[in-house]
């Protein structure tokens, strides 16, 4: 269990940064998320905020830290006594994606430059089960790990000013879905009709770090049908519980 030795650094007056080795790996993610849960349980009666990323946690307290060494010691002892708690149920989400030309603005170029047929790209993209590492960049933007190497493709040198809400895209060695209209430099290969961020819900995102995601190709007719259900607030996305 003690394969890692995270380091602890003060970060401004109210925060502490915990860092793992600088690489992207599922084992690190598990340890990061497990420690995060243990911290949340420990501080359950206190208002704290924790941002997790690939290999770090940033813990922000709602007060100015008086004695940084004491706070770090508390965290260190929490780490060494941490339990493998399973409070959250992890899920595999089946996310419908329409790869039709109407949405897939860059699929043609990708296919040409990668010398892969469009259907091969779609198959490679939708066969993979991706891991949600964290949510960042925009509200509801999932950082996914696991993109097939043959689909790595550099970001556009000039970003688009407007990328449609739901756009499914590839940027470098990453793939993701734009939760809302925004500027962006990734290559668009499809669109998902579902909502990745809903500010009217107290838990505004369906997915969380540690979950898995798979893209399910749908036709443009299915896309329209699902869009209607999403708009009415009655769409039920397929998902299954996975053992963490």
């Amino acid at each position, binding site marked *: 269990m003690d394969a890692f030795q995270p380091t602890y650094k003060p970060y401004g007056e109210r925060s502490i940064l915990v860092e793992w080795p600088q690489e992207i790996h599922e084992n690190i993610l598990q340890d990061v998320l497990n420690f995060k849960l243990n911290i949340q349980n420990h501080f359950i009666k206190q208002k704290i905020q924790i941002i997790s990323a690939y290999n770090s946690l940033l813990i922000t307290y709602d007060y100015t830290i008086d004695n940084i060494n004491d706070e770090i010691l508390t965290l260190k002892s929490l780490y060494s006594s941490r339990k493998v708690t399973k409070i959250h149920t992890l899920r595999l989400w089946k996310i419908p994606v329409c790869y039709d030309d109407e949405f897939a603005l860059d699929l043609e170029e990708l296919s040409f430059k990668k010398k892969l047929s469009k259907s091969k790209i779609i198959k490679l993209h939708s066969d993979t089960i991706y891991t949600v590492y964290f949510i960042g960049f925009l509200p*509801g933007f999932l950082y996914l790990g696991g993109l097939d190497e043959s689909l790595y493709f550099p970001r556009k040198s000039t970003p688009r000013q407007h990328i449609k809400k739901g756009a499914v895209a590839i940027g470098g060695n990453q793939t993701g879905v734009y939760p809302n209209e925004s500027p962006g430099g990734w290559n668009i290969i499809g669109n998902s009709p579902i909502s990745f961020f809903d500010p009217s819900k107290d838990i505004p995102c369906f997915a969380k770090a540690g979950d898995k995601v798979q893209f399910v190709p749908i036709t443009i007719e299915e896309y329209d049908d699902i869009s209607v259900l999403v708009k009415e607030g009655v769409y039920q996305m397929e998902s299954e519980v996975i053992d963490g």
Partner: protein
Amino acid sequence: MVKVIKPGFYTTIQDLGRFGYQDYGLPVSGAMDQYSAQFANALLNNNEHDAVLEITMTGPTLVFKCHTLICISGADLSPKLNDLCIKLNTVIAVKPNDMLSFGKLNYGFRSYLAVSGGFQTEIKLKSRSMYKNITTKLKIEANDHLMINEFNQTKTNKHAALKYNSELFSSNVLDAYKGPEFELLSPAQQNQLFNNKFTISNLNNRMAYQFSELFENSLKPIITTPVLPGTVQLTPSGNLIVLMRDCQTTGGYPRILQLKEASINILSQKMTGQALQFKLLE
């Protein structure tokens, strides 16, 4: 209720933001200069979390439709009630059909208007702070009706003796702690960072402030990591960026400094062309 006649340059509803939702990728948001926002609330005996109007550079024209008390703190934008100049950091009673307008910017960049009980605009994810795709509006517009509660008392309040600390405007020094990647800076870069003044470029808003001076830089981007308001990043092209209240929750540029909270307030009151210096806190 308050009716918006003219919205001003960039006027938003802000409270202290959405603490605790950063794991969903939400910015914290909240008043840029929290000292001034909280000062105005304190003079009205409001809760520190009550929503205020954040007024940037050019003020709005507002008409009150009920009795309330108001207090304006922060930048001096020459506020007027009907045709009379009114003082900052002072509790003022307003009545139905009173018109609040603003004029010349004398100092600072952001002014805060608090009303008794705070603005009662929509709450999304436990905050009224306006932000794109979270609240319905991202800034106030002409003909908006901003909800406030009728407040009929005119008695002076117990905090009248509070003194506003105007060092916020006179200071050109940003106190900062070392950021996680500070040690990656070369001695020459460290020297440049603390022995030069940095001029605010026209790329400054609620998300970030950029500076005009460039660094010689060979630092590469890092694996995406958490950031906070007040984080100072150095981009591969040598730009210095200070993240502000509406910043993203994660980023991939080396985090070389972290501003002291009070320095975020100081920077929030500065505008394009003004020069500042960083001071390292141990």
